[in-house]
């Protein structure tokens, strides 16, 4: 274990440079030699995009530790199940999914699973993480107890442990989110953390530990070294899953290095120069990098598998956005094709109306007939017609640009602003094009790019007219329910000024006039439905309400989990032509199995 980056080294470099007058004798960049750091290029996998800034801590009990302890990466600490975002199926990891119902989810723990200190992974470890919220409200996994009331442990015939996750009927009653947990919450060694909790007495104190020296993990890689410029993982030769899950094979790369660059461009350059094998960063016009050997999931548009829907959230409590006709007119006024082509490099299939994606796992819940009948597609004339019918009049200047908008009572409609963080260039481009379309249709909207701090602050309290968001962006088993809930649920409705973490546009006030009860009842019933036909019917109904009411404006589809690779050093990456793993970097979900399939290039 090395803690790098000691003080004085850079100063010493400067000194040497001053004395020698800059050592110009350098090897060509890119194809560096293999000696030096002891991480031979041919045995090392360089991947990036999930760690920005100095690594702060590798403590899995904190909220945002460094890669790969953060998010839901599963190469150091593992989840019970691995979710395949391509097939929608659960694959075994620390456990195997046995059955699921409206009341419980049953998982069998793999009896071979072991921690790196030789101890077996047991139900005690699972209970430790899932029930931490009972002891500490501030725990990162505290919310789990609202969804899981109890974990019942029984022994199978082969002595493996069978865990029954009981759905918290009195709490959220949501088995769908329990499935989300099983593929997201990493199991931690209770025998390591319990003594620390007992000794330091408080979770907040344990969270201050950095856990960066030889941590006890269950996954195939462990922390080798780190600095502010990179994090290095080393393959564990005695990983339990090599025999139990991968037929005795070892993962290809001996080392995984995550370089920490300071801008997206740096990742693009490193990828093109083969200093990086794969990255999950936004690189515009990826086809220009083809000559340098950069590959994507599809070799033509949209290049990546879509996973999230950038959306304009509408504040339905403000006039004239409270008017359904006005919201519908906005949806007709936006040129979605131009957003796709100009703002997001074509990394999106054509947008369909509604909040459910018409392809992939969600595709089964999408109904084209409904979309044709109720949905809004780009058509300026229709937008103008709807506005005119609702009594709005737009006044244009001589040069054709919009001057102002007047409502049926002859009062001027206030200019509406789209709040979006300044400097998020792809979002800025999306917003600019959406605003352009709406203004052309006579709607008085302007861009309102603000400091990211103000942006985040405005969201929960509903301090905006329109705001760019990516509702429930992760691709999880609970999609598209989680996206629809994020856009429409009034379960925790609070007036503007107070905080809401979902439906921040405050659509459908339960105490207001015209409350649509079906929205909330559908949202609460969908997670408990196991019958495919009933589920499809419920989603269809909810999506129709979304299209009729237009509480938000979906703008395009964007990849959420994706990668671009340079296969000059490592080959056999999963792609559309060879989809043996989902389109995610091999460090999360079912994509991790790619590590055992990657082969050194000749």
């Amino acid at each position: 274990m090395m803690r790098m980056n000691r003080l004085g080294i850079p100063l010493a470099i400067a000194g040497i440079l001053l004395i020698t007058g800059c050592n110009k004798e350098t090897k060509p960049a890119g194809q560096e030699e293999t000696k030096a750091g002891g991480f031979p290029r041919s045995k090392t996998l360089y991947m990036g995009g999930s760690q920005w800034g100095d690594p702060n801590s590798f403590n899995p009990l904190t909220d945002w530790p460094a890669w790969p302890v953060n998010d839901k990466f599963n190469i150091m600490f593992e989840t019970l199940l691995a979710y395949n975002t391509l097939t929608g199926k659960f694959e075994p990891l620390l456990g195997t999914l046995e059955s699921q119902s409206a009341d419980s989810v049953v998982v069998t723990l793999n009896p071979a699973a072991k921690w790196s200190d030789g101890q077996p992974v047991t139900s005690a470890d699972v209970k430790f993480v899932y029930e931490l919220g009972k002891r500490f409200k501030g725990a990162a996994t505290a919310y789990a107890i609202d969804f899981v009331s109890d974990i019942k442990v029984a022994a199978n015939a082969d002595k493996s442990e069978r865990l029954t996750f009981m759905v918290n009927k009195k709490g959220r009653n949501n088995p769908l989110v329990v499935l989300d947990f099983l593929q997201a919450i990493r199991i931690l060694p209770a025998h390591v953390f319990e003594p620390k909790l007992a000794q330091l007495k408080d979770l907040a104190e344990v969270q201050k530990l950095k856990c960066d020296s030889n941590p006890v993990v269950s996954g195939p890689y462990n922390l080798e070294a780190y600095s502010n410029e990179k994090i290095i993982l080393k393959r564990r030769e005695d990983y339990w899953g090599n025999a139990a899950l991968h037929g005795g094979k070892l993962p290809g790369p001996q080392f995984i290095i995550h370089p920490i660059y300071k801008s997206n461009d740096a990742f693009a350059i490193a990828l093109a120069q083969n200093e990086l094998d794969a990255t999950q960063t936004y690189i515009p016009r990826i086809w220009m990098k083809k000559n340098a050997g950069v590959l994507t999931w599809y070799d033509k548009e949209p290049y990546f598998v879509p996973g999230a829907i950038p959306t304009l959230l509408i504040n339905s409590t403000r006039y004239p956005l409270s008017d359904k006709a006005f919201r519908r007119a906005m949806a007709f006024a936006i040129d979605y094709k131009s957003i796709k082509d100009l703002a997001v490099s074509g990394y999106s299939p054509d947008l369909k109306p509604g909040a459910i994606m018409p392809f992939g796992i969600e595709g089964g819940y999408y109904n084209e007939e409904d979309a044709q009948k109720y949905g809004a597609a780009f058509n300026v004339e229709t937008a103008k017609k709807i506005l005119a019918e609702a009594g709005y009049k737009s006044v244009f200047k001589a040069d054709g640009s919009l001057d102002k908008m007047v409502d049926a009572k002859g009062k001027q409609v206030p200019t509406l602003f789209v709040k979006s963080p300044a400097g998020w260039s792809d979002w800025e481009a999306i917003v600019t094009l959406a605003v352009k379309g709406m203004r052309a249709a006579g709607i008085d909207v302007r861009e309102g790019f603000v400091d990211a701090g103000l942006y985040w602050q405005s969201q929960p309290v509903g301090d905006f007219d329109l705001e760019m968001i990516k509702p429930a962006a992760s691709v999880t088993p609970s999609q598209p329910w989680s996206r629809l809930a994020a856009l429409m649920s009034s379960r925790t409705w609070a007036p503007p000024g107070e905080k809401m973490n979902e439906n921040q546009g405050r659509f459908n006030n339960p105490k207001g006039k015209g409350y649509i009860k079906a929205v909330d009842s559908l949202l609460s019933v969908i997670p408990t439905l196991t019958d495919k036909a009933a589920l499809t019917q419920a989603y269809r109904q909810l999506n129709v309400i979304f299209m009729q009411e237009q509480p938000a404006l979906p703008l395009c589809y964007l990849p959420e989990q994706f990668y671009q690779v340079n296969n000059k050093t490592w080959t056999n990456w999963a792609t559309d032509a060879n989809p043996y793993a989902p389109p995610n970097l091999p460090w999360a979900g079912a994509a991790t199995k790619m590590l055992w399939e990657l082969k050194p290039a000749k």
Partner: protein
Amino acid sequence: MLKQYPTARYILHRGGWYFLTFLVAVTINFFLPRLGASNPVDIIMGKAGSGLDTEAAREKEESYLKEFGLVQVDATGTILRGPDGKPLKSSNVSQFFNYVKMCFQGDFGTSFQKYPKKVTTIIAEAVPWTLALQLPTILFGWLVGNILGALAAYRRGVFDRVFFPLALLLSAVPFFAFGMLLVYVCAIRNSWLPAMGGYAGDMVPGFNLDFFKSAGAHYILPFFSIFLILAGGQAIGMRSMGIYELGTDYIKYAKWLGIKENKILLYLFRNAMLPQLTGLALSLGGMIGGALITEMIFSYPGLGMAILSAIQGQDYPMIQGCTLLVTISVLIANFTVDILIGFLDPRVKAGQMGGN
């Protein structure tokens, strides 16, 4: 008092003013980030709260507020609440006294965004890189630029006619554009030098030759991206100062006396340098926070990016730590030059002697 020691009095007098400036700056450093409308926990919640429902998000938010000392707690660590059930925010005044106390202990607290990393650790890791890049660049750039500028002013002729437009061009190029151009030409089109990083991607810093070689190779592009432009700007300033000085009586007199050219050049340099020295002080003072763009273009280690993300995230302890560092370096640089000018400039010296 100290009447017979005018130099000591001068230094003490200046020092007193600098100390006062320091106190005011420290206070402003504390209050400025807190005057904005946004709040650090809201920004963190944007990241940590996604996917949580409303109640879970509220609980999480309160645990952050407590951890960062932004709410009042009782002796058992329970958050004190107002009549409406909302946590009571701790006052800025109490936070300020806590901050001053911690400053005197050399502790800037724990970063919000890089929790549980200490601000002092973050600064200590980044500052050496920033200094290693900026200090030689600024000093060399200043020295080379001024010497060339003085030469151009004195020699004129072909040297000046070639040099002056070149320096003008260099000083007018924005250094980020120049940096990108360097990367494109030297690293992307031709693989002469590495495009980015402080050292090779497969390396761990350590005291060995390979590491220093690699760090040296990675140093060249960032160095020249700042050096050339800085030198160009300095040269232009020095050249016009030099031309002005050349017309003065003492130079003419020295020439009539037949004093050697190098000696005259030295006189010229010494006098024309005075305003340039003040410029140097400003560059040196600002160097701690000044390398942001270079860091971003070359993904070079350093403090600039840390300051940027601290400001964007309203990371109070980190902003306070960094601005304090910037304040101190600006003040020290200015103080040093103030004293230096006191010795170098006979007019100031005379002022001290007869001054009241």
